């Protein structure tokens, strides 16, 4: 009987044949994350007149298994920004802890030193969505340069230093860009064209009302649920405005679904007609 730790909980070799332990890396170069394990799917976000709206479903998939159905993926930091995480959920949890520490550290300085005596409120602090996005970009890029990437694609929404709506994205390689509407993962193909219909340019986005923007994003979440097999009908919706700050609702449900279109779809799976 083999009592080494490597053999614990494994099928017996004499019954099932030799165990393939190639992944245990007994030799060769160090290997960091090669692929994500538990994953979240698309995050979508859209700017409007005086803020940004963001949404992501509450599902954490284990491969194609809908493993955890109650995992909110929109997190608020520094009271004026929301970060939406797509990709690996454990890396999301790491980033969540890291950014929480960061925002607490940044809040120290706003109470111990002030930049101007006129600055009466210390609520805003120094950390805003634009800073947070730049920080995440540097972090993800440096991790990729160390060949140990954080397997996330991240959207950052909030207000910039002049309190205008801000929306930008970073991926696991540190590629950063901004646009009036943004989507990660499948959403980039399925939701982005819909959002662009309403806000292709900053000018168009600046004419959208909050209600319109929320309606567009809800419509996109429905399309994503229809088409994306790793999605869920329960999702989180966040709205950031200058007046209302960050409002996150983590128990939204898709309304008025209609699967009538499914009947017209031919040519998939075991269908023969």
């Amino acid at each position: 009987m083999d009592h080494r730790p490597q053999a614990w909980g494994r099928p017996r070799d004499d019954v099932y044949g030799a165990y393939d332990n190639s992944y245990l890396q007994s030799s060769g170069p160090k290997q960091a994350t090669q692929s994500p394990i538990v994953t979240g799917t698309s995050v979508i976000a859209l700017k409007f007149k005086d803020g940004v709206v963001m949404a992501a479903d509450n599902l954490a998939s284990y491969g194609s298994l809908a493993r955890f159905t109650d995992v909110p993926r929109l997190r608020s930091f520094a009271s004026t920004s929301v970060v939406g995480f797509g990709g690996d959920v454990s890396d999301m949890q790491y980033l969540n802890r890291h950014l929480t520490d960061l925002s607490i550290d940044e809040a120290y300085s706003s109470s111990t030193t002030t930049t101007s005596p006129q600055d009466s409120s210390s609520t805003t602090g120094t950390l805003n969505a634009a800073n947070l996005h730049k920080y995440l970009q540097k972090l993800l890029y440096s991790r990729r340069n160390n060949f140990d990437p954080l397997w996330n694609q991240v959207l950052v929404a909030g207000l910039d230093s002049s309190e205008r709506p801000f929306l930008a994205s970073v991926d696991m390689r540190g590629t950063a860009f901004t646009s009036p509407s943004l989507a990660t993962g499948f959403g980039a193909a399925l939701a982005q064209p819909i959002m662009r219909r309403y806000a292709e340019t900053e000018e168009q986005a600046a004419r959208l009302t909050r209600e319109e923007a929320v309606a567009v994003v809800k419509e996109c979440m429905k399309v994503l649920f229809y088409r994306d097999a790793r999605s869920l009908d329960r999702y989180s919706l966040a709205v950031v405005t200058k007046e209302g700050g960050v409002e996150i609702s983590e128990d939204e449900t898709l309304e008025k679904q209609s699967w009538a279109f499914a009947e017209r779809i031919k040519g998939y799976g075991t269908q023969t007609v």
Partner: protein
Amino acid sequence: MTSIGTGYDLANSIFSPDGRNFQVEYAVKAVENGGTSIGIRCKDGVVLAVEKVITSKLLKPGANKRIATVDRHLGVVYSGMVPDGRHFVDRARDEARGWRETFKTPIGTADLASRMGGYLQAHTLYQYVRPFGITAIVAGYDSELETPVEGEVGKGPSVGAGGKVTGKKHGGPFLYMIEPSGLYWGYYGAATGKGRQSAKAELEKLDLAAGELSLEQAVKEAARIIYVAHDDNKDKEFELEMSWISGADGPTKGRHEEVPKAIREEAERLAKKALEGDDDEEEKKDDDKMEE
């Protein structure tokens, strides 16, 4: 020995024959010369206030804060040696961060007070350190909401098995004062520094244990008490610095924040008015006596 007293005050870790640690008592003297700090625990929050004596006209007004944030929901103010206080705050922040790392949840006010009490006490035990020359007031609002633990899956049962009890109240406002000896107690109202005697007398009048005082009233009382406590040494100018922590549905949403300028100035205006009123009354009494 005669030229240096009994010799029992030369080092920490040595008791005098009548059971006193002189170094700790000297540290208390350092606190007694510092600007007055107070803390008020009321029904829906905690207020901290400090009398910041202006040591030079060249200092920028409003800069060099004396009240520090330790974690989102925790604030500290201290009287005595400011560098010692700064180190106290650094250590408290390390403790709060360490707690979050270990338990994935914010540190409770009582736990922080305990950790810091232990830290100060350790500085009375060894030859190579001196006690802290501060008395610190630690204020916090432990969240009354369910605090999510990072990585938890699902919400768990709403009641029953799973450790939840219906109708049980969690969290709330807390206030602790830690002395150079490491001694700490929880208080309804705490005062330390030069004006502590009159500040304590004023705090006692508020009947804080009844839990009637609201946060807004407490801010005004805190400002007034600092002004009353300062009244004894009118020679030096001072700035009033105040911070507060409310519950999740209060003005600071469970965070430790500086009291907004408008509210502070209103409180200061009322404080000055109250002081003038007192003076008038005293004068009147004197007049009455004259007439008699």
